[in-house]
């Protein structure tokens, strides 16, 4: 089922095309890196995708790759590919902010495991991307520094929380980026910026050195130009890590070998509750109907499945994630690192003033909600009850996957919305994750792949699979992507500045 055909998307070179050009000695890693850095520089005034650029680190790494290639040495699987990293991952000696004022001057003393893996694979890390503060948000507008813009329409949001990563990949400036997904923070921005975004199974990728938001949900994953790049990047970052006790020691397959070009004998589940929900928007419903028809044309058969507890996803998530966040963010106390405000001199005043000045409104809101959910007297009524509903949600998916190989469903309820449209209404923003939260709570892998356009704005199709079945999920997405080629259109931002 492997497809060796090379697809070059105009204006947005894929990582594998760049790697092949370097291997064939048509181009050097340094040339490609300089191209990426200048494309970013050209686009930054419009997109503002990066908090910190790392040009010196990038050029030094590219020269090292070129030297080793010239000497005939073996290089890594991502050799010479410009890669952006969400600013939630520690990169040693680089400022790592998580989009927060409280970490504005924090210089990471060590690198995240995934960053070490990118370095070992010879990827070229070009910079740290903007994000909603501590990954809490769905539009990138909760960044403490500035909002990022969507390359398809710069008056619109790129999605969030991994908005900077989505925007820079969507613009064609870099082929690969790392994001993190807690309730949809890779998949929703991938949908908004017309790229591929993969949330792996919880435990598939190490969380060591990734600034914690909700520890039972957070997972790092690829955000890329195409599915093949996602497969290669996932293979490079996946695997058991002794530094993360929730990472799982299961073999990492060669995901590129699983990329299919047809879907014969694939049974896809269509979720009744999700279809009823999306039916309220005629244009969105029509887009997903067309996507399912394309999947059918590739040979897939469909099974009607039900996720009866999906409607409780939002409530469950907004108890569990804030509870975990309130606990994780207790470490920002102004003592060991980060901002300090001294207040009136005593230690409690220092804590309260430091956290008042360092955290933005969404982070404060979630810490208070989470503190409440964990309070003695309410713990059983809220937190434990939410954990029980999580069990029901997992059982829903178990039952669904007994009848199908994978699920195809909407990734989002709408195309990218204008900046400011939802920023004053947190509940409207929370509802953006309606289609992505259930998979996060169940821990299963899920991705978004470009599925077409509504009003000329990109929309993604979500594919989900049982735990540790990323290969199956990527295979299906690849067949769909190769048959439809929805991502081939160029972004207006890239076209205007080319």
């Amino acid at each position, binding site marked *: 089922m492997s497809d060796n055909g090379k697809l070059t998307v105009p204006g947005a070179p894929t990582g594998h095309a760049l790697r092949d050009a370097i291997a064939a000695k048509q181009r050097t890693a340094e040339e490609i890196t300089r191209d990426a850095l200048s494309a970013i520089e050209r686009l930054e005034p419009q997109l503002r995708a990066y908090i910190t650029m790392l040009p010196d680190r990038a050029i030094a790494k590219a020269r090292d790759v070129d030297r080793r290639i010239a000497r005939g040495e073996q290089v890594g699987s991502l050799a010479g590919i410009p890669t952006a990293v969400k600013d939630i991952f520690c990169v040693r000696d680089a400022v790592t902010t998580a989009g927060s004022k409280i970490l504005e001057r924090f210089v990471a003393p060590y690198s995240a495991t995934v960053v070490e893996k990118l370095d070992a694979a010879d990827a070229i890390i070009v910079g740290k991307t903007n994000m909603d503060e501590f990954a809490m948000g769905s539009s990138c507008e909760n960044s403490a520094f500035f909002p990022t813009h969507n390359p398809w329409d710069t008056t619109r949001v790129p999605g969030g929380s991994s908005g900077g990563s989505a925007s820079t990949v969507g613009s064609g400036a870099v082929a690969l980026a790392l994001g993190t997904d807690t309730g949809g923070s890779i998949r929703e921005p991938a949908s908004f910026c017309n790229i591929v975004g993969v949330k792996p*199974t919880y435990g598939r990728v190490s969380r060591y050195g990734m600034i914690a938001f909700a520890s039972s949900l957070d997972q790092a994953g690829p955000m890329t130009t195409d599915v093949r790049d996602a497969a290669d990047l996932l293979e490079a970052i996946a695997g058991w890590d002794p530094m993360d006790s929730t990472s799982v020691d299961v073999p990492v397959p060669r995901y590129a070998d699983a990329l299919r070009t047809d879907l014969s004998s694939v049974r896809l589940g269509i979720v009744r509750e999700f279809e009823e929900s999306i039916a309220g928007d005629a244009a969105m419903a029509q887009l997903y109907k067309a996507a399912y028809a394309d999947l059918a044309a590739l040979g897939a058969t469909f099974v009607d499945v039900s996720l009866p507890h999906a409607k409780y996803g939002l409530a469950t998530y907004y108890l569990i994630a804030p509870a975990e966040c309130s606990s994780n963010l207790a470490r920002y106390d102004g*003592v060991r690192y980060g901002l300090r405000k001294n207040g009136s001199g005593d*230690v409690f005043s220092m804590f309260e003033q430091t956290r008042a000045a360092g955290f933005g409104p969404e982070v404060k809101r979630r810490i208070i909600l989470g*503190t409440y959910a964990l309070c003695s007297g309410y713990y059983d009524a809220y937190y434990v009850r939410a954990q029980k509903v999580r069990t029901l949600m997992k059982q829903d998916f178990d039952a669904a996957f007994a009848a199908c190989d994978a699920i195809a469903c909407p990734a989002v309820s709408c195309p990218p919305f204008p900046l400011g449209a939802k920023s004053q209404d947190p509940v409207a923003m929370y509802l953006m994750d309606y289609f992505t939260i259930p998979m996060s709570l169940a821990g299963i892998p899920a991705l978004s792949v470009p599925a077409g356009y509504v009003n000329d704005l990109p929309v993604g199709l979500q594919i989900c699979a049982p735990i540790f079945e990323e290969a199956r999920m990527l295979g299906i997405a690849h067949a769909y992507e190769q048959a439809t080629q929805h991502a081939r259109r160029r972004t207006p931002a890239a076209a205007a500045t080319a």
Partner: protein
Amino acid sequence: MADVPIDIAYTARLARIALTEEESTRFAAQFERLFGFIRELQALDVDRVSPTAQVVPLANVLRDDEEKPCLSQEAALANAPEREGPYFKAPRILE
């Protein structure tokens, strides 16, 4: 359960965040809407359901107790807002 269950001032104190009056008022209105969703969970019968803390089955993850390299004292102190010699410095805690 009350309609606006959160005592925001008390919870903010527990969370060690000084909130302005304006923030407290705004959060109260926003929590009220969010609790509209959260209350739906109360309708579910979960008496016989066991909670899921983490979805991938792992238990008793241990490692050998051996010495490994760690951050140097200087590296660990490099981001300290205030230090005194080899220590993090904080306001007095015990009177």
